[in-house]
């Protein structure tokens, strides 16, 4: 059970810290000047273009050679957060760019600064649009945290392997683990669905789904 709480910790921290990174990087990419945008694009491309496993190895096995020693859990937390941040930045960028330019123009016309327009008008809409992508990211993270066992983090999967090799009950043990992942995924999906409903803008979205169903 301790493994499960480590898995949850990794998932929740990576999603939350990744969210903060994602918001900053997406805003930098869309609204920043050329230099800031270039830095953000570089970050996104490097993180998305390299395997998470390589990133974790660099953090855990590579950094000690420059004098930075991280314990396995910290390395996994940092690695997963940065990795998720790059993906979340791209989800949010898509949402930011889908918002009509008239929203920003109207906000500026009222006398809002660019930053405030983003804060009060653009972001609240873009974040709502991003919620389904987050549902994806959350589930993906939950399962991807199992990679951390390779750098000796005792999360759910590592624990299962340990018990299985001790008792030789591989099938039973991994079946149980699969079910735990599955149930957790279903619970997470349900939570995000509720969040999405809670923040739905009346008159938008729901009708479209109904309309599309009718067309199909």
């Amino acid at each position, binding site marked *: 059970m301790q493994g499960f709480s480590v898995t949850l910790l990794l998932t929740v921290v990576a999603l939350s810290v990744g969210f903060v990174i994602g918001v900053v990087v997406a805003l930098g990419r869309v609204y920043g000047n050329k230099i800031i945008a270039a830095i953000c694009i570089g970050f996104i491309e490097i993180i998305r273009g390299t395997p998470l496993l390589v990133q974790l190895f660099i953090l855990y096995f590579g950094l000690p050679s420059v004098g930075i020693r991280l314990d396995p859990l910290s390395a996994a937390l940092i690695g997963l957060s940065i990795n998720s941040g790059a993906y979340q930045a791209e989800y949010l960028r898509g949402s930011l760019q889908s918002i009509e330019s008239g*929203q920003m123009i109207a906000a500026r*016309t009222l*006398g809002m600064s660019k930053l405030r327009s983003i804060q*009060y008008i653009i972001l609240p809409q873009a974040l709502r649009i991003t919620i389904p992508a987050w549902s994806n990211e959350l589930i993906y993270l939950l399962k991807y945290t199992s990679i951390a066992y390779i750098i000796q983090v005792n999360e759910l999967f590592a624990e299962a392997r340990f018990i299985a090799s001790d008792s030789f009950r591989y099938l039973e043990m991994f079946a149980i683990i699969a079910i735990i992942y599955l149930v957790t995924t279903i619970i997470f999906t349900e939570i995000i669905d509720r969040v999405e409903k809670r923040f739905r803008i009346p*008159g938008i979205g729901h009708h479209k789904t109904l309309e599309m169903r009718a067309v199909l």
Partner: protein
Amino acid sequence: MPMLECKNIHKSYGDLEVLKGISLTMEKGETKVIIGTSGTGKSTLLRCINLLHPPDQGQIWLEGKEITGKRADINQIRQKIGFVFQDFNLFNHLTALRNVSIGLEKVKGMEKEDAQKRALAELEKVGLKKQADQYPAQLSGGQKQRVGIARALAMDPLVILFDEPTSALDPELIGDVLDVMKSLAHKVAMLVVTHEMGFARNVADEIIFMEGGYIVESGTPSKMFRNPKHKRTKEFLGKIATLYGEEKEGG
């Protein structure tokens, strides 16, 4: 000293010069209507005045202060210049009430409660008190545009710029919006780009005919409709009259 003065405004996009030297003045509470064919720079002129697209050349003064200077505080100036858009541009994620109150709260720094009280009063003026809690997607086009007007009014602007406020509306919804605009005449200055000749004739203090980036002619409605000096003005008004089924000026 006029409330708003534009002097020799030029604006180009790339190689295309859209405004070729526009000058106009507006007094407090005055209503001026800009007419002209599409692509003659009417909307661009409005966007120059509130510095959405700052002019390349020329100056604009608001209450005697130059707003086109480098030192001018754009956000401060825009509070005094309302803008009503052709396609409304209401904030999609906010109720009608919050659409009107958010500027008061976040720009003018009013307390939330006071801002909402004021916003409700503005919504009442445009006949939408009942719709205060509805979201833009739940409103008709005409209602959206009236919220747009309330949003501009709430900021206590010196002048409101209207960029074809009824062009995106179904014909039967135009009347309500025009009625609201009429009710504002002489209370706040309005510079209106529109094809609604009825509004121009009945409400405007002056009609400005623009073509090809210039002001061709301007004058009172009776002068412009009865005997425009320029051939182009005559042709344009003739075409509009046929298109929109305007009856001849009766007196």
